[in-house]
């Protein structure tokens, strides 16, 4: 009997893991975008990505499926970037910045947009962690309800805070 229940547990665990791998692989771009915002070189990018993967997997059994996986992943990944991740003491080399904001050169990608995207990332890097999160959620078209729930602040405050963050960003982009 014990053996059978063990086998069932192993099977359930395996199913959960398979589901996680499918969900996470499909949505990994969310994590990559967050890594680009919160880190400035490839090494840090991968460190943060690893920590996000660990946290999403660790909490995956708590994901009930009453919301979309991606919605849930935004929260876990942002929390990891804001509160759990610590940059390693290795000093980032400044020239790494261009590696990161990135050699995005695909044929169908507009030149002006590429320049704008680089400028945008560069400007976002100058914001504090919370403003980064706000701007990121704005760029990803998240509704205020979701933003306020993710950050744990009221709807009104999320709006106030968002407007300030946008102003800061605009000032950096168009000084």
């Amino acid at each position, binding site marked *: 009997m014990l053996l059978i229940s063990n086998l069932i547990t192993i099977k359930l665990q395996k199913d959960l893991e398979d589901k*996680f*791998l499918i969900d*996470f*692989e499909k949505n*990994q*771009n969310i994590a*990559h*975008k967050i890594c680009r915002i919160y880190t400035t070189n490839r090494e840090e990018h991968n*460190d943060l*990505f*690893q*920590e996000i*993967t*660990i*946290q*999403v*997997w*660790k*909490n995956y059994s*708590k*994901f009930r499926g009453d919301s979309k996986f991606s919605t849930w992943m935004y*929260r*876990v990944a*942002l*929390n*990891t970037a*804001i*509160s*759990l*991740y*610590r940059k390693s003491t290795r000093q980032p080399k400044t020239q790494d910045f261009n590696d990161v904001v*990135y050699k*995005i050169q695909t044929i169908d*990608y*507009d030149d002006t*947009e*590429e320049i*704008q*995207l680089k*400028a*945008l990332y560069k400007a976002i890097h100058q914001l*504090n*962690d*919370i403003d980064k*999160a706000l701007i990121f959620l704005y*760029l990803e078209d998240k509704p205020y309800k979701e933003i306020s*729930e*993710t*950050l*744990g*602040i*009221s709807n*009104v*405050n999320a709006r*106030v805070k968002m407007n300030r963050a*946008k102003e800061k*960003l*605009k000032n950096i*982009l*168009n000084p």
Partner: protein
Amino acid sequence: MDSLDNYKKAWDNQPEEKHKFSALEIYKLAHSKSASIVKWIFIIGILEFVILNSLSFFVDTKSSDILFKEMGLESTILYSTAAAYVILFYFLVLFYLNYKRISTTDSSTELMKKIINTRKTVRNYVLFNFSYLAFVVLVVTGAYININFNDLDTKKIIIMLLTVFALTLIILGVLWLFYQLLYGILLRKLKNNYKELAKLENLE
């Protein structure tokens, strides 16, 4: 039109990450060791409990036992040691429960609050220990003066009290500095982020 709209369009059209991870790589990453701040807080917290409670093994307690006996403080020390263990147990349980409550699926504010609280449990335990130590020093000094009252002149008593006072202050000062450093390294970023969000809630 909002001046951010163009940038937003560039954002929406950005290509997907080039260095994508395969399912196998994700599997490996998910099962690797976390290096998160929460893990560090747990390890350092446990170390602090262990170090504080193993200090008595390095100190020669035999001579102080005799001294306490002479002063008639034997039972006071016995009871307070028993109480100290109860209190240690209480703090350990609290620390563990707080640690367990930390969840990345909470809202950011909630998560940061829980991390800070977990760290505070250990800090309070250390503070408690050192206030207890200061209390013992005070009692022992008082008892010593009481016993030898006839042999001591006022000048000697004052010098003794001042020395004890200064030593206690220096030890507490060093401890405070150590904590500022530890907290600074571990929690500065987190605390700033927490303040950033909490500040806003107070505006309402």
